[in-house]
């Protein structure tokens, strides 16, 4: 996803001479094409994320469009006040790019995990929050962010994510993508963890449960039409996200459903505690029931279905 983002960014920079990139001592080899294209439009603030975001806001105030890039928590947490006051309140044309959203930096531990970023970014007025799921989606999200007026938080995974969406799927801000039709419940996810939702739907199908899958590449503004439709069609949404259960996609959908009173929302995500487990992303996801089997098990329990002993889900037991 990172390379797809960088390629789209360079394309946009070729078309838009105002576009500048501000770094904080990260991104070795990622921006070589941009560097070749427009070295005078790349600035390295050093290991100084607050300055990076402030500088991006200043460039935007002066009529430029700026992209700031770092590991997700160093954008969303470290530079939070600059994001809030200078970028969000200033409605600046700044795209904040957080790489390694969720637990993509597994072994590097909690300082490198971002599992509250969707909540804090979503709570900020003016902020658009995007979390594409695969390289093509990341490309679409990047181009959409760079032609939008106003601030965007773009949450990426790392690199090497498999393609998940059908080729040619277009990215539209505020529009969810239906990945799979189903009658019994809807698995709604955001970001690369869509892979777990799709895998869970396949496992559930073997148990005779027909799960729909919805990808929300935009967390804010929420595609409420898609949510309403999913609740009307299937009665229940199980949200699947690489984020705390507080305030992210699950929070957003639950808030909306509480207002309309339609259907039931169950949230799968990280519980309200820091992830202290040591491990790679897959390990950490599995430990929190966020791999395909864990999500499927969660769906069964939400539906009140006892997993058949023969089922691959049942073999793993309810988590």
């Amino acid at each position: 996803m990172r390379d797809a983002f960088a390629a789209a960014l360079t394309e946009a920079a070729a078309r838009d001479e105002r576009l500048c990139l501000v770094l904080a001592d990260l991104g070795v080899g990622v921006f070589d094409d941009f560097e070749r294209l427009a070295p005078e439009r790349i600035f390295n603030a050093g290991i100084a994320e607050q300055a990076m975001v402030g500088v991006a806001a200043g460039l935007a105030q002066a009529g430029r469009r700026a992209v700031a890039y770092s590991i997700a928590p160093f954008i969303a947490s470290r530079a939070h006040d600059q994001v809030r006051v200078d970028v969000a309140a200033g409605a600046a044309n700044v795209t904040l790019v957080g790489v390694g959203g969720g637990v993509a930096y597994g072994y590097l531990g909690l300082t490198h995990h971002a599992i509250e970023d969707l909540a804090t970014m979503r709570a900020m007025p003016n902020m658009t929050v995007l979390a594409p799921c695969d390289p093509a989606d990341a490309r679409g999200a990047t181009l959409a962010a760079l032609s939008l007026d106003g601030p965007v938080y773009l949450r990426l995974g790392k690199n090497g994510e498999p393609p998940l969406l059908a080729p040619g799927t277009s990215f539209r801000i505020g529009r969810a993508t239906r990945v799979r039709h189903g009658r019994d419940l809807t698995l709604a996810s955001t970001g690369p963890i869509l892979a777990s939702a799709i895998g869970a739907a396949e496992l559930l199908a073997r148990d005779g449960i027909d799960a729909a899958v919805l990808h929300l590449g935009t967390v804010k503004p929420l595609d409420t039409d898609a949510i309403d439709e999913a609740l009307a069609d299937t009665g229940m949404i199980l949200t699947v996200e690489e984020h705390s259960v507080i305030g992210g996609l699950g929070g957003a959908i639950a808030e909306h459903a509480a207002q309309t009173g339609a259907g039931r929302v169950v949230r799968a995500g990280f519980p309200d505690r820091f992830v202290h487990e040591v491990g790679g992303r897959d390990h950490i996801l599995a430990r929190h029931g966020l791999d395909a089997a864990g999500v499927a098990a969660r769906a069964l329990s939400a539906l009140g279905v006892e997993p058949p002993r023969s089922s691959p889900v049942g073999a793993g037991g309810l988590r």
Partner: protein
Amino acid sequence: MRPAGSEQQAFEIRRLSLELALGAGTCHIGSSLGIADVLAVLFFEVMPVDPDLPGAPLRDTFILSKAHAGSALLSALALRGTIDRAQLEREYCRDGGAFGGHAERGTPGVEISGGSLGHGLPIAVGRAIADRLDSRHRRTYCLMGDGETDEGSVWEAAAMAGRLGLDRLVAIVDANGHQGLDRKLADDHWERLASRFEATSWEVTEIDGHDHAALRHALRGGEGRPRCVLAHTVKGKGLPFMEGRFDSHYRSLRPHDRERALTALEQARVAA
């Protein structure tokens, strides 16, 4: 039996850090090798209550702010017996293991959950203030990267320490001239860095960060003001094919590099 001297301990820290990196396939090895001498002098000579007593408790507080060199700290702790060496080798950066790529508070001997640069010095200032309040006669050491001093929080804390005259606070800057993105340093880069500390009422000592006698002297240092030890080091020190190389930050060693890496480390020691 008297514990081995700091030179021997530095070699052991390097070898164990290397074993950890090889075992887990992790990066940041250059950052760890470069600080082995600083850690050896601190953990085996300067900080123990009685350096002649194996495993003697530490009198002082040590904060590794450049925590991406966590494998070196964990190695030093294992060599002192603070944590179990076999467990460290088995579980470092393994799924379900006890030790991640950045050491976390909760592991014995690890004071802060590191990994976000620029956090160590403010915490060290707080620890030094608490020691002063409680009349505890110990020093607080905080080891930072030179790149890390880009962070504003470093200078906010430095100004406060200077203002309070925290004379038992020692900041060590691992001056290897490398950080995340390659960049060319100005000729007077180190003088300028030193003068930034001096401008906030710190005393600055510049030394060769691989010279144990110089480290011993500087780290025990005089009193009256907070002290910055600008320790010039070579990133990747001890492993010739990594030394002074920018990519020693990112390259991870694989099991098939094992023979070559351990042999190179051994040969470099004999040559030194």
